[in-house]
């Protein structure tokens, strides 16, 4: 520090410790509460130290769930969350990588149109197009059938070369419906574009002289060079995917497709009775665990991802 003022350093530590106390308090309360029996949490003040029901609470949530609210075990919900988070993260990275590659490394008609189409998705978060997106998920071919209707063709079947194609495919209650609409990401595409622009042109030229075509160059040179960026983005996107709430709420009615983050509200919003807080808190701990573990375990990648996606 600039000058030596011991009391200032002590003060800094004090403020930080107090601040961390405020930030960590909810976690502490949650953790402690999840180790108690339900009746311990029915009278105020609730205990602030661990109880002895930890194993019972967690094993009940993982194996059978909460009896009076659909009773889905959390194992299944967490698996759904995992599938959703992984599909979104991997899917976004994959399609953004190739899209950014096309935009940066090729000249072709309508290049800028494509760029702006992708750019525009930045301005259309799911929250502002809830209903019409839901309609598309209810029937993926909605845009096509509506366009056909404009051209005077009614109905949801199209006959091409003798084959009748059913244009009524619902993605409700499916992993595709959960993930596909969230998979297009302008942010990831821009991040990769930004990174590709910093890759020296000479590498591309050397690869061309070495006989590598575009896809070979992409696989052998560009992809390995993007490793750190991919990993950093994966951390951010995994958290983004795991924490989705509104979208799973809309497209899943079948409890077997519920994700854990969205499933917890059913345990909290129970009519007329006090929620079983010990179990809700155990479920919350389980729902927080994977993304928090990733942030703490991959702190450097996480910070890099966070900073770069905002450029």
């Amino acid at each position: 520090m600039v000058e030596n003022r011991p009391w200032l350093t002590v003060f800094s530590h004090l403020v930080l410790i107090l601040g961390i106390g405020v930030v960590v308090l909810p976690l502490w309360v949650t953790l402690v509460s999840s180790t108690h029996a339900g009746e311990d949490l029915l009278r105020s003040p609730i205990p602030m130290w661990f109880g002895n029901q930890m194993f019972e609470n967690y094993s009940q949530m993982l194996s059978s769930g909460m009896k009076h609210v659909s009773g889905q075990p959390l194992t299944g919900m967490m698996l759904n969350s995992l599938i959703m988070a992984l599909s979104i993260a991997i899917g976004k990275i994959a399609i953004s990588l190739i899209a950014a590659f096309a935009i940066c490394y090729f000249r072709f008609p309508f290049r800028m149109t494509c760029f702006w189409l992708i750019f525009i998705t930045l301005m259309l978060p799911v929250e502002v197009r809830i209903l019409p997106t839901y309609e598309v998920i209810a029937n993926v071919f909605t845009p096509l059938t509506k366009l056909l209707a404009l051209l005077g063709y009614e109905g949801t079947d199209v006959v091409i070369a003798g084959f009748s194609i059913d244009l009524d495919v619902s993605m409700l209650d499916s992993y595709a419906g959960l993930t596909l609409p969230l998979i297009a990401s302008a942010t990831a595409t821009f991040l990769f574009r930004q990174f590709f622009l910093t890759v020296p042109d000479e590498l591309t030229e050397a690869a061309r002289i070495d006989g590598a075509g575009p896809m070979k160059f992409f696989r052998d040179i560009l992809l390995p060079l993007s490793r750190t960026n991919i990993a950093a983005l994966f951390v951010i996107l995994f958290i983004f995917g795991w924490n989705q709430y509104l979208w799973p709420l809309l497209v899943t009615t079948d409890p077997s497709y519920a994700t854990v983050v969205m499933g917890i509200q059913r345990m909290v919003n129970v009519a007329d009775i006090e929620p079983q807080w010990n179990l809700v808190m155990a479920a919350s701990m389980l729902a927080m665990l994977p993304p928090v573990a990733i942030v703490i375990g991959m702190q450097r990648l996480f910070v890099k991802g966070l900073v770069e996606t905002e450029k």
Partner: protein
Amino acid sequence: MIKRVTFRHKWLPYALLAPQLLITLIFFIWPASQALYQSVLQQDAFGLRTAFVGLDNFAYLFSDPIYLESFDVTIVFSVAVALLSLSFALMLAVMADRIIKGATTYKTLLIWPYAVAPAIAGVLWYFMFNPAVGINAWILRTVFGYDWNHTLNGTDALLLIVIAAAWKQISYNFLFFLAGLQAIPRSLIEAAAIDGASPFKRFWTIIFPLLSPTTFFLVVVNIVYAFFDTFGTIHATTRGGPAGATNTLVYKVFNDGFIGLDLGGSAAQSVVLMVIVVTLTVVQFRYIERRVEY
């Protein structure tokens, strides 16, 4: 915009762009255009006929006291979230920037709430403020004599979601503030110290003005966050209540569309939200462009 060295290929670039464009067109552009289209239509009571009504839906919207109240709630909510989270994070970042020992540990302990889902964050604070058993409600009652009840008191409910939403955003703000502080040249602060400025004075006359680009950027990000990413926080806890006290615009568009099934009205609300996102995005990009010039 493009590399100096490019490949030549007739169809490959289109094939590479196809997945992203297809998803963008089907799940982004089409729904958005539908929202625009439906916002100028109105269905009759039985959903049998639709008629073009021009801007009637919007006119109705902005004369609807419930919608206007929702607008107010959203603005109060966003400003409160941004203010609370930013000031808390700035204070911690300034302190963390001062110390050398234990900085990494502090950082680790401060960044994890970023990973907590907004809905879960809501549930945690909902429990802590639970009027019957919540530890915070108990402290308020026994120490301050305040009877906290977010199920009946609108202000309490709004405060609850403000705290839950701001808490989750502290990590993000802290990281960006810390990075901003560490980017300020040491020599400037040393020069100020030699000029006789006290640490407190240095902060307000040197550090804070130099940090203003970061602050401005974070203000926009926090407002976008409070507008659009807090649906889960509200839906998992107060559900817009009591009496609309936490009925933000995004919560309302969901509620009217899905529960109320008012197609035209919901579409008009979507369009209003789109205008807000576009404005905020443009502001943010203007700012980024300016930052590049520095």
